[in-house]
């Protein structure tokens, strides 16, 4: 079998189905298809989302790093660091996510589990996508070109090798998990 399989071949679509199915199960079992879990993260009351995301980033990142080292991957797939656009866009995104209580992926999962407000918000996302398309020429001309560094990764930007970044991320994540779990334990003890 030659890898990678072309995405829009029959085999590619089958893989999309299998990976999508597992992703949906994981999102639901992780409780991130639950509005309360997302909103309580932003209220700093429930760190489930952070635990899932940081674990996913670390496990995924180490795997990608290793596969790249073994020459199994053709290259990276990263987004342009149009930093003004990224900063403004992510700031807007955070506001929307707190208000909606989902992100695009978890919204799809929430709709499938019956959450009616998630469905209404999906229509909102469709409207937001239209608004972006309509304003795209302006955004491209006035925002996307500013502070534009291209498809750059932290190792190239800083000269610090990837392995050092992963040690740093592991240490930071470990410390974060420790604090969060300890806070949760003392909270439970107080309740008893």
């Amino acid at each position, binding site marked *: 079998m030659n890898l990678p399989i072309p995405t829009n071949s029959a085999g590619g679509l089958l893989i999309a189905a299998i990976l999508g*199915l597992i992703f*949906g199960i994981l999102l639901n079992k992780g409780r991130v298809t639950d509005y309360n879990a997302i909103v309580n993260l932003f209220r700093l009351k429930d760190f489930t989302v952070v635990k899932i995301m940081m674990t*996913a980033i670390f496990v995924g990142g180490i795997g990608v790093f290793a596969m790249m080292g073994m020459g199994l991957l053709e290259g990276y797939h990263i987004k342009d660091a149009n930093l003004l656009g990224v900063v403004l866009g992510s700031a*807007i995104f955070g506001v929307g996510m707190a208000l909606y209580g989902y992100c695009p992926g978890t919204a799809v999962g929430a709709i499938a589990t019956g959450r009616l407000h998630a469905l209404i918000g999906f229509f909102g996302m469709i409207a937001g996508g239209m608004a972006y398309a309509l304003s795209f020429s302006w955004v491209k001309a006035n925002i996307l070109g500013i502070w534009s560094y291209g498809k750059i990764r932290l190792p190239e930007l800083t000269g610090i090798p990837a392995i050092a*970044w992963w040690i740093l991320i592991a240490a930071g994540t470990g410390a974060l998990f420790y604090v969060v779990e300890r806070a949760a334990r003392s909270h439970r003890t107080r309740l008893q």
Partner: protein
Amino acid sequence: MKTNENLPGIKGNPLSLRIKVWNPYIVGTGIGILSWLAFLLVNKPIGMSTEVSKFSGWAASLFVGWESMTSNAYWAGTTPAFGYSTVFLAFTGLGAFISAYFGKDLSLEPVPSVWEEYHGTSVGKRMVAAFFGGAILLYGARMAGGCTSGHGISGTMQLALSSWVFFPVMFVTGIITARLLFRKKVSAS
């Protein structure tokens, strides 16, 4: 936080679909391994918001026709077409449905409980907030070039600068918004 106490003991299969909530570290590991497979098998990282913006294109074409939709500068580059990401999105929904079915998490929820505590039982109010929240969210995702999956997971694990900027910024504005949004509880009448 009743649900956090739902975590199963050691006995039984911790990955049973009948358990409503799995250990978050197991879920995170699962998503990490899923990204290995996505990179290795199809050389395409997990992402969601590009596909949703293609749905916007399809919806727009119902009003203005296919020709004028694809003549738009954005959709000319991100032209809606059935493909890998469409299937991935649909099966993400199916997976969540199957999981919720066995885990007894299916619910036609119009107003989630935290929202209700602070904003009351009004369905209309919640729907308006969800609609505008969704619209703001996707606009931001497109400007940033990705969402919680494309940037938050796939980009960060490749150590992309753009994604490591995305993550903290969205987190901060999300916290500020939640602060403003959940300030005063509705008094019990």
